[in-house]
């Protein structure tokens, strides 16, 4: 489990439930490393501003990630942690690889998730 204050997506069932609900959510899939920690931190910071979007994390090395986030076609070519994937109405609307700034995350939340 990741040591963050974000809600953790830990099982495939939970992931499917989120996806099938059609709700807006974003998953930061990473480790506790220097490129991932700033993204978790930014998400924690942004959560109160985006109450209609659930910002979550997932352990990159867990079995759930292997069958969900890491198995998505949108992350197939990713080679930098974390993988951040944004979902709206059950579909991937944006995906980024490697560190992102709070401003870059805000831009995606504002442009792709509204």
């Amino acid at each position, binding site marked *: 489990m990741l040591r963050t204050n974000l809600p953790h997506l830990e099982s495939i069932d939970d992931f499917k439930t989120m996806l099938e609900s059609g709700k807006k959510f974003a998953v930061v899939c990473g480790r506790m490393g220097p490129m991932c920690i700033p993204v978790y*931190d930014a998400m924690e910071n942004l959560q109160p501003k985006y109450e209609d979007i659930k910002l979550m994390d997932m352990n990159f090395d867990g079995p759930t990630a292997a069958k969900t986030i890491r198995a998505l076609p949108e992350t197939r070519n990713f080679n*930098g942690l974390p993988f951040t994937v944004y979902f709206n109405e059950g579909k991937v609307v944006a995906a980024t690889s490697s560190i992102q700034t*709070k401003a870059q995350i805000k831009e995606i939340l504002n442009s792709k998730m509204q």
Partner: protein
Amino acid sequence: MENFDVIVLGAGAAGLTAGIYLSRSRMKTLILDTGVVGGQINLTHKVANYPGTGEISGRDLALNMKDQAREFGCKIISQADIIKMDLNSDIKTFEVDDEGIFSSKAVIIATGGKPRELGLESEKKFKGTGISWCATCDGDFFTGKDIAVIGGGNSALEEAVELTKYANHVTIIHEFDHFQAYPWAVEEARNNNKISFLMEQTVTGFTGDEKLSGVRSTHKITGEETVTPVEGTFIFIGYIPNTEAFHGASFLNDRGEIITDESMSTNVPGLFAAGDVRQKRYRQITTAVSDGTIAALSSINYIHSKH
């Protein structure tokens, strides 16, 4: 508006040290960081030469410093979006999105640096799909693959050796015919049979469709072009100061570094600087800590003399 004695910009080694000294001296102190606490220390897999700690991860060292500053009463806000600032008035002010307006009698700029990029269009294209600035984070994506390391300083050579734990082969591409790294780091890289060297090169671009497939470079003297087939590239070509927010300020040199005297004072009254953001030769955690200490003590003197 919330008033402080000193506001420190940046929560890396210099900023946190300043925070520890200021708070312990009963100065009401706020540290604002646009990123996360720790700064570049977070990028260091292992710190082995910081006195008194033994070998420690960069992240743990940063967290220890943060806890120490907080224990003395220092307030720290990370991921701060500074919308507006006034550094020139007697009382300095900062407006931070979602947080409010803060003022102080003195300010210490300790915003550090960030990894330098080559500035090539194709470099942006492959960020996260082949190009990385963090071996610790992304090294294992390249297990069994051929990769390149660009650079010739300590970071480049040390990380190249580290990356041989994962990669099939590492090509170090460097712009000069010699390395800037310490001799022991060069020797370690030269003795590693998974590392080869491509010297006197100007990197001109990266090739590939969806994923990186090669690094294109030309020899600086002969002009001969080489495409090194790799699936990953790690760039370690130094750092640039985080001073975009102060663009055009009189205290910056032509490289964007902050000019200070030995008391860490800038040419603006009440404005100090510390750490890698300063114009100086050596950039180490220990030198940042030293700068932070001096800047804190100088700002306390300044406040006592003025207010």
